[in-house]
Structures are given as structure tokens and as C-alpha cells.
């Protein structure tokens, strides 16, 4: 049995290529199956695999590398159900380091398998990326994109039908120059001949010499996701002597100082008072700006804390708790937590990682 792993960014055309390849192989009487890996709300359009009678399984809640056992279970299930000769496994767009974390573990734990890795790239995006200073990604996303290209033994430059001949030539030359040892395939995945050509390259591929595992910085890899952590909390500040506004400003200042003292990198920290007054982090540390903020006398203030900070939401929540306790003890007020929502995307933690050349 062969497992063809596909990596490549969102929109690089992996699903279309797999769909076309499955149809071609099935027409030749070859038993196929598909394992997809994306967020469920996006995977549902893969229902068409089953409408075409292509057996499929899904791995959601994260990439193959961090859900290796789930991938493994799905492989077993497909073997039991349909005995596929070929399985296409399409990884989530933000995944990389797949040689060390998926390909090599598969070969180690299932020695009879053949495993290939193809990296897919949208030719129009590659064209943008190859221009000097042409990256349109956040730097951490850019890192993942380039690592995907770096590790693909076979790079499929896809959607050539959406490009002109000049653009195709420029991209081909650019990729060849950057990745001279890679096998490049120019492809329009709706073109049967093109997909046949890719399938032939996969058939010719051998696991006799294993590819190098990526040299990769997991901190950068994880940073793009970590930066998306957010924390929203609503508080009610109640004062028996109509000083809730002042209490609120003191709470904000103390919380900011506490965050600053701990050195958490802040992407975004905003406070919204009674749905009207916005306070940003920088403004609060500017004494002049601070003095310009004046709130009317009030017995009650609603405060929304909106933070994107590089730390676990639980840590931030504990910090908020300690500042609440501090302000309540120094001021004659009560601070109630009326709502809290937060999430922290997981740092990539592969089930297995084989960095060595051999398994």
C-alpha cells in the first residue's frame, strides 16, 4: 500500500488534485481512499468524495503530526473497510515538518508502506512570493510557506490554467533556482494528462533514500498560531461612593503594569468602558494622556478587557484576579467578573518526530 501525503497552503488545489487522481486510478481498477485534515467547517465540502464513491475519513482538531494516532486509526479503518492500494492524505494548510513527524513515523511503524510527500503551491501565489519583497504573509506564516516548499520532494506548481505563459516561465525558473534538487511539476489539476504525470512521478518515487527532515524552529512555527490567542473579559466595577470611574482607571493601570512587569509580548490590549470610552495600552502609559481621561461620577462601570497577548489565557486570568483583589482592598469597591471568553491555540506538539536521516 502507498500513502501519498500532500501539503500546501489553503487554496493550493490539493483537494481537486486528489479528486481527479482518485477518479483516474479508480478507472484503472485501483482501490483508493482519502484522509482529509482540516477544520470541519471547511471539510464538509469534501462530502463530494463520498458522492463520487471515494472512501474517505477525516482528521479534525489539528494537523496530522499532532494527531498521528488519529491518522493511524483512520488508516487501519480504511484498510479494514476497503483495502485500498493507494491512500491520499491531505494535510491542513498550515502544517509543515511532515517528513519528520508523519512520513518517517509511518515508514517506521508500518515498514511495508511506501510514503510520498508532495507540496502543492498556487502558481499565482508563488509568483507573488518570488518577487523581491513580495511576501504578503505575516512573517511567521511566510516561514511555514517556505518550509513547506523546502521539504516537498515533489513540488506541484498548481493552477497553471490561471496563469499566462510568461508567469509560468518566471515561476518555474524562480523555483528551480531556489530549490534545484526538487522535482517540479506544472499542473492544472482538472487536466487528466497533468494529473497522470503527477501520479507517474509518485509511482517512480522510492523510499530507498529517505529525505532529510527539516531543520525547523518550532517557536517560529508555533508563533503564528500563538499570536492569535485572545482573552475577552467583562467586569462590573461597583462603588458605594460614586467613584467607579476612578476605580476602573486604577484597575486598568494596575493590570497594565502587572502585564508589563511580567514581560508578556502584547499584540493588542484594549479596554472599553461603558461601551463608550476606549483606552489603549500605549495611552495609559502616557501620563498626559491618562490625565485627559475623565469619567463621570458613577456608582457602577462596565469594563471590557480585550487582549491579544502572548501568554496562556489562564495566566492572564490569574493576573486579572490578583489585580481585582488588589484594587478591591485599596479602594472601596467591588469588582465582579460578568463574562469571560478566551482561547489559546496549541503549540505544535507532534506525536512523533524523527529528525535523523534514517528510521
Amino acid at each position: 500500500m502507498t500513502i501519498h501525503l500532500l501539503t500546501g497552503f489553503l487554496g493550493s488545489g490539493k483537494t481537486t488534485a486528489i479528486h481527479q487522481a482518485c477518479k483516474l486510478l479508480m478507472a484503472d481498477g485501483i482501490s483508493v481512499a482519502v484522509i482529509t485534515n482540516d477544520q470541519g467547517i471547511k471539510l464538509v465540502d469534501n462530502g463530494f468524495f463520498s458522492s463520487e464513491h471515494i472512501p474517505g475519513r477525516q482528521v479534525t482538531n489539528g494537523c496530522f503530526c499532532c494527531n498521528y494516532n488519529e491518522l493511524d486509526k483512520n488508516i487501519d479503518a480504511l484498510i479494514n473497510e476497503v483495502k485500498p492500494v493507494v491512500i491520499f492524505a491531505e494535510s491542513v494548510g498550515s502544517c509543515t515538518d511532515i517528513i519528520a513527524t508523519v512520513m518517517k513515523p509511518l515508514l517506521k511503524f508500518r515498514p511495508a508502506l511506501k510514503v510520498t510527500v508532495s507540496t502543492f503551491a498556487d502558481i499565482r501565489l508563488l509568483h507573488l512570493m518570488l518577487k523581491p519583497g513580495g511576501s504578503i504573509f505575516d512573517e511567521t506564516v511566510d516561514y511555514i510557506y517556505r518550509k513547506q516548499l523546502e521539504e516537498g520532494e515533489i513540488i506541484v506548481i498548481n493552477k497553471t490554467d490561471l496563469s499566462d505563459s510568461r508567469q509560468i516561465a518566471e515561476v518555474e525558473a524562480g523555483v528551480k533556482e531556489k530549490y534545484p534538487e526538487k522535482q517540479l511539476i506544472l499542473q492544472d489539476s482538472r487536466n487528466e494528462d497533468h494529473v497522470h504525470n503527477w501520479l507517474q512521478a509518485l509511482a517512480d518515487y522510492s523510499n530507498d533514500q529517505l529525505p532529510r527532515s527539516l531543520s525547523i524552529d518550532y517557536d517560529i512555527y508555533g508563533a503564528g498560531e500563538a499570536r492569535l490567542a485572545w482573552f475577552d473579559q467583562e467586569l462590573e466595577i461597583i462603588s458605594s461612593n460614586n467613584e467607579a470611574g476612578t476605580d476602573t482607571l486604577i484597575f486598568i493601570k494596575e493590570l497594565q503594569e502587572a502585564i508589563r512587569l511580567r514581560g508578556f509580548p502584547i499584540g493588542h490590549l484594549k479596554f472599553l468602558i461603558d461601551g463608550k470610552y476606549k483606552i489603549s495600552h500605549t495611552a495609559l502609559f502616557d501620563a498626559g494622556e491618562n490625565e485627559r481621561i475623565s469619567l463621570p461620577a458613577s456608582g457602577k462601570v462596565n469594563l471590557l478587557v480585550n487582549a491579544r497577548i502572548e501568554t496562556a489565557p489562564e495566566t492572564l486570568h490569574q493576573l486579572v484576579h490578583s489585580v481585582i483583589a488588589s484594587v478591591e482592598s485599596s479602594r472601596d469597591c467591588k469588582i465582579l467578573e460578568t463574562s469571560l471568553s478566551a482561547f489559546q491555540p496549541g503549540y505544535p506538539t507532534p506525536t512523533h518526530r524523527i529528525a535523523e536521516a534514517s528510521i
Partner: protein
Amino acid sequence: MVIGKDIVVSLRYVMRNQHGEILENTMEGMPATYIQGSSGILPLLQQPLEGLKAGDRKKLSLPGSVTGSGELYFEVIIDHLRESLPEELMLGYPVLLNEKKCEEDCDCYTQDSKK
């Protein structure tokens, strides 16, 4: 800003099957991001989201005839909305992460914090 054509939508959701079992909960994962009107998620799921704003919630469902297996139910919360970039419209999918796209009046100080 509300969801309309070419708006980049980030949403989080809980996905359940017809038995009410949770299949996926992105409250503890990455928000899903797509461009409204593109092929990022099924049009059947996009249409009911038209006109919603950040913070709004909506329940959606997909019949088994569409999923190819059982019915699916989604409880969606809109996390973030922004205009798409020309490059994103050309490609048909979003490429930038949310944190680069605060509101215009935001004093987001990522750069300052690195000084």
C-alpha cells in the same frame, strides 16, 4: 462592518453530528477564516451568515445529502471581520492573520513592545 461579499470572515464554532455529539470545537483551536462569496466554505453555510457582525452567533445545519454522510449542526460565533486585500481577492482566500488587522483607531503596539 457586517458580513457581505469579499469580507474576510473569521469564525469559531462547535460542530455536532445528528446525535448531538461534538465532532469539533474550535473554541479551543484556530478560528476558521474564509472570504465571503469564495469557495472557502460551502455556499449553503455562507448564505445565512450574510449581514452578521463580529460577536454575533448563529446556528447552521447541513443535510446528509450535502455532507455525504450524516447531518451536521454548527453553532457559530463571528470572531472578526475585515476587508480583503486585492491579493486575497485574486487568490480567492485570505492570507493575512487577524492580528495585523486591528481597527483603524487601535493603538495596537506590537512594534513598541519589541523595542
